[in-house]
């Protein structure tokens, strides 16, 4: 049966009023976060797109110039709400690079564990969100409930559910509580046991295949050149990962392969997230097994009055959405002179939106955003 002659687009094209503006976000059920596109529509087809950003702009980079080195640690996790720990670690790594400090082995492993746990929480939102934006709310209910299991572990380790403020220049703030690692291992096994359910519901679902395959393709070269990073880059066939290229924390001591997909479309990106989720579980298990004993913090004197010697550094971390980079300039004062944040979502959220959205159907926008893992606060800052 051919419905084409009845589509809104056809009707609209015959009508006088061919185009209209549709505000997709900030208040839209398909929009994740307080961010929006203004879509110039013909019927259900998108003609043109304008970006409506800035609803989450707080002026982080200005505020960080006004607070001390350690005090800034409370600000940085707020840059990405879904995935806060890469921000803390990147900021600490940049400070440690300028100060030329080596952190203790156990702190490295604890950082790895928090980073991977944070990746789990973020990927669970992304996977659930990708399902929910196609109307499959069951997967959202499952992933959010499982994400709370990871958040429970975070709360036990750090005291906060969402904002942990656990990493600090020189290591981490506290050692693990008694019985934590065993319980974390159990939680990881539980999460692994849930994977077949996710697969049968989402990734083996013929509807998902039909909706996602071929949506928003990115070729291998384009992905490298336009600044995409993380899962989006690897979903297009580039075997590139900061954890391998410039190892930080304890990643050089853990065994893992870079997962890639070839197609570069929305389904490949969603599948990439799912596979990286499994990899993160495996990495946490390895880190728990290899966890050494010892100090968790290198002595840097009174951290509250920390002064960082003049210099500059760029540190980067592979977060669940891609490369988080912090460029810090120090002038030897109690406060940083300049902190500049590179969020992973900007190339996808801005540049690829202007490339992909025109000629796309309105129903695909939400899931297109979901598979790219666009997180508004990290480019709004």
């Amino acid at each position, binding site marked *: 049966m051919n419905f084409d002659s009845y589509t809104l687009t056809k009707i609209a094209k015959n009508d006088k009023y061919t185009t209209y503006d549709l505000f997709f976000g900030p208040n839209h059920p398909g929009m994740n976060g307080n961010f929006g596109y203004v879509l110039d529509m013909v019927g259900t087809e998108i003609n043109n797109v304008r970006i409506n950003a800035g609803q989450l702009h707080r002026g982080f980079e200005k505020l960080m110039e006004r607070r001390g080195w350690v005090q800034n640690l*409370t600000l940085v996790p707020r840059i990405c709400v879904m995935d806060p720990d890469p921000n803390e670690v990147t900021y600490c790594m940049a400070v440690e690079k300028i100060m030329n400090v080596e952190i203790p082995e156990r702190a490295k492993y604890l950082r790895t564990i928090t980073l991977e746990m944070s990746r789990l929480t973020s990927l669970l939102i992304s996977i659930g969100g990708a399902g929910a934006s196609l109307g499959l709310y069951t997967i959202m209910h499952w992933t959010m409930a499982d994400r709370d299991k990871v958040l429970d572990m975070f709360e*036990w380790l750090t005291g906060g559910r969402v904002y942990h403020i656990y990493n600090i220049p020189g*290591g981490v703030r506290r050692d693990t509580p008694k019985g934590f690692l065993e319980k974390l291992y159990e939680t990881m096994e539980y999460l692994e046991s849930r994977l077949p359910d996710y697969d*049968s519901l989402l990734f083996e679902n013929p509807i998902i295949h039909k909706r996602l395959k071929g949506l928003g393709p990115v070729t291998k070269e384009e992905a490298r050149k336009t600044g995409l990073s993380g899962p989006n880059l690897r979903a297009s066939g580039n075997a590139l990962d900061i954890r391998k290229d410039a190892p930080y924390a304890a990643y050089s001591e853990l065994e893992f392969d870079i997962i890639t997909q070839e197609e570069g479309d929305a389904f490949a990106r969603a599948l990439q997230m799912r596979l990286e989720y499994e990899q993160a579980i495996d990495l946490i298990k390895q880190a728990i097994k290899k966890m050494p004993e010892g100090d968790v*913090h290198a002595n840097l004197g009174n*951290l509250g009055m920390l002064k960082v010697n003049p210099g500059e550094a760029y540190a980067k971390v592979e977060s669940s959405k891609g490369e988080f980079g912090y460029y810090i300039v120090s002038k030897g004062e109690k406060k940083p002179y300049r902190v500049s944040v590179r969020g992973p979502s900007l190339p996808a959220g801005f540049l690829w939106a202007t490339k992909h959205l025109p000629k796309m159907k309105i129903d695909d926008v939400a899931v297109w955003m979901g598979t790219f893992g666009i997180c508004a606060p990290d480019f709004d800052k």
Partner: protein
Amino acid sequence: MALGEKSISSPLSAIKNLFKKPVTVRYPNEELEVYSEKGVSERFRGVHSNDMAKCIGCGSCERICPVNAIVMTLPEGSEDTRKQYRPKIDYGRCCFCAFCVDVCPTVSLKMSKEYDFTSAAPMKLRDGEEVKFVMDEFNYLPTDKYDDNPGYVTGKKKKVLG
């Protein structure tokens, strides 16, 4: 199983979930049971509690506070010496980072497991009075009221800050 080859009875597999323990925590009637005690974790960063006898009024917490939430104030009825000042915390600013707990030299400032801190201004207040009312209620001088329910506490040995 390959795509689209599922058995016609596969929807029945949902029945197995009937016999599992529900994920839902029916909160007001039932509390979270994950940690050794019911409720929030043992390191939870909640509302502050301050041992007034132990506190020496040094002001370390005021200096480390990243958000200018802590102000050293003189509690009513105490003589005006430096040692008598106690931290007063503005929960309209506080970001619950627990740097003040980490930095406290006498381990008097702690965080408790209390998290429910709400305020509703009376209806008759208007012209910005209701905003001031809420701000005043959120300005709280921590006492040892919640000392029996400690959350995030840093012992003297484990110090990273300070």
